[in-house]
């Protein structure tokens, strides 16, 4: 069994990340490099960063106070970012996919459930051999679940990941600049 401790960050993260990981290994991750690289799975900002052994530093800041207690100017950064066109675009892309998606699969599932309980006769109608409408509808639920999951992951990877990562760095840069050490 492999230890989860001594792997480089982002390892096991899929084939497409291996090239970047090769470059990153041993080199202190420079801000410029990571900024360009959407496949780089970053750890926390500032703290929790692995030390030499790859184990997160033991120092843990308090759970409370880290948000609310931040410098008021640092808090303004989030409002600023929220109103920026780049963020509005990321949010719109997320919502344009998720809202109709959730509506469609919930309606499809609930109509399956209600039909199965209230109209068993329809579900029992034979299609071919032992297979009836109910069996097809049930397997259809499995199929649509897999399809939805695939479509969501693809949409997020192609349409959101890069923009979100850039916003993340910009935001953290701004927070650090305004509020001192965040």
């Amino acid at each position, binding site marked *: 069994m492999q230890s989860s401790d001594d792997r480089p960050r982002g390892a096991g993260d899929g084939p497409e990340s291996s090239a970047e990981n090769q470059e990153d290994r041993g080199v202190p991750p420079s801000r410029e490099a990571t900024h360009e690289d959407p496949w780089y799975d970053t750890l926390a900002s500032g703290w929790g960063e692995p030390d030499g052994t790859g184990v997160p530093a033991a120092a843990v800041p308090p759970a409370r106070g880290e948000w609310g207690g931040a410098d008021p100017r640092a808090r303004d950064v989030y409002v600023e970012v929220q109103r920026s066109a780049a963020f509005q675009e990321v949010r719109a892309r997320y919502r344009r996919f998720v809202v109709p998606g959730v509506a469609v699969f919930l309606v499809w599932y609930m109509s399956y459930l209600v039909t199965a309980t209230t109209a068993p006769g329809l579900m029992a109608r034979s299609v071919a051999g032992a297979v009836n409408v109910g069996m097809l509808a049930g397997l259809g639920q499995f199929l649509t679940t*897999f399809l939805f999951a695939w479509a969501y992951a693809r949409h997020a990877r192609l349409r959101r990941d890069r923009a979100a990562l850039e916003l993340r760095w910009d935001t953290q840069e701004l927070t650090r600049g305004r509020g001192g050490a965040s």
Partner: protein
Amino acid sequence: MTGHHQALALLLFSGFVAVTLGITTWVSRRRQGSAEEFYAGGRLFSPMENGFAIAGDYMSAASFLGVTGLIALYGYDGMLYVVGFLVAWLVVLFLVAELVRNCGRFTLADVVAARMSERPVRIAAGTSSVTVSVLYLVAQMVGAGSLVALLLGRTSGAAQTWAVIGVGALMVVYVSLGGMRATTWIQIVKAVLLLSGTVALTALLLLRFHGDIDRLLLTAAERSGHGRAFLAPGLRYGGTWTARLDFISLGLALVLGTAGLPHILSRFYTVPTARAARRSAVWSIGLIGGFYLMTIVLGFGAAAVVGTGAVRGSNAAGNTAVPLLALELGGGAASTGGTVLFAVVAAVAFATILAVVAGITLASSASVAHDLYASLRRSRGRRRGRARSEVAVARWAAVGIGVVAIALGLLARDLNVAFLVGLAFAVAASANLPVLLYSLFWRGFTTRGAVWAVYGGLIPALGLVLLSPVVSGSPASLFPDVDFQYFPLQNPGIVSIPLGFLAGWLGTVTSDEVADEAKYAETEVRSLTGAGAA
């Protein structure tokens, strides 16, 4: 069942216990005692590892033994369960996984408390998380007890009692010594074992029918004694309109409850980024979907090979359908193959229960220490050295929860396992999901709204169960001699879930507090970009 089964099953199970204890020791050798490590395993797991661990957390004995048994007894109606269990993952993937990873640190309450006045919200969310976890835990403990009794052929109360105590003690050891890292590796080992066992059984079953699923289904229908009706809905949830409404209520709870289960949410904190959280959810959807497809085949297979009558004869709830099927597929009770397969299935079932129980214990000890203890203690104004001592509290909380779960597991020994799991899902969907979705997506959500959303879902869900036929008023209920049954459904979901959402809305519109724009901006930016994420 002969002594050979028992000896071999015990041997295999001891092997699993030895391996898992080995993992725990090996992990705790290098532990540093940080909260990051104890609750989130250092956040260094890869999406694939976490995907397997999530699948391990989710595929409980209730699905492996319970649902296959329901299919073997009632055919199509058992299948409705697994559809709900799977579709629920789309809610998790679309609305929860990435955003929760970005906004929270260890628990569900982190996400909500970041925007609100902290103490009341944390106490409310912590209470409901612990309630859900304990209900789920009791279900698994009850399952463990009856399984041991059934599979080892000892129906005496003593064997059951010792099984519950043993499972409880092991889970406390895993969690309090190994934390999230040990728990995750145990989940991964268990998921691999369970999936391999299921694949092997399915392959053997399909070989027996020469890959002809049509013939398998027709044989199942024929041997079930119901004919073609076995392949269509209505055998279990047909009949009265109350029964049908009850099932719709259960279906709603299943599909919305998963996204509010604390032990599932806390798994997303074990990976480094939101992107990794998304990919682990996709991995787990693939694994869980494949597993449920196989359980459907195995359930119909048990009806076809063993026969519905024989399954019911062995256990009225159908829980022994898969072990009996394994016995038959191996060549029958007298053969070596049958003995080995039966023992393997029994050992895998034990391992499943043990791993699921460890995952839930960890999540609930996190809620106790990180949410309840931290908030209550803070009111007394002591803040010194809290990160270290919080982990110590969490370790002791695991012991406490273990004791409570053992006690409740022994008390609730005769309750139906599937009912308890359905109830846990209903409470999670009513108390945890509304507050989580409102805090992530509603700009104007306030502290009062958050507190009302939690209690407005939690109290009706539990109250309606108390007034339901499960507790009183019918021969099968917990207290058959008294009658205070005013609510006809067994599952409260269809009423309590809308109530949770309604209470959250009502609390928000009636409160004087104006929602903090900047804090909502922070939640929104953080949730979608990962800025400042732990």
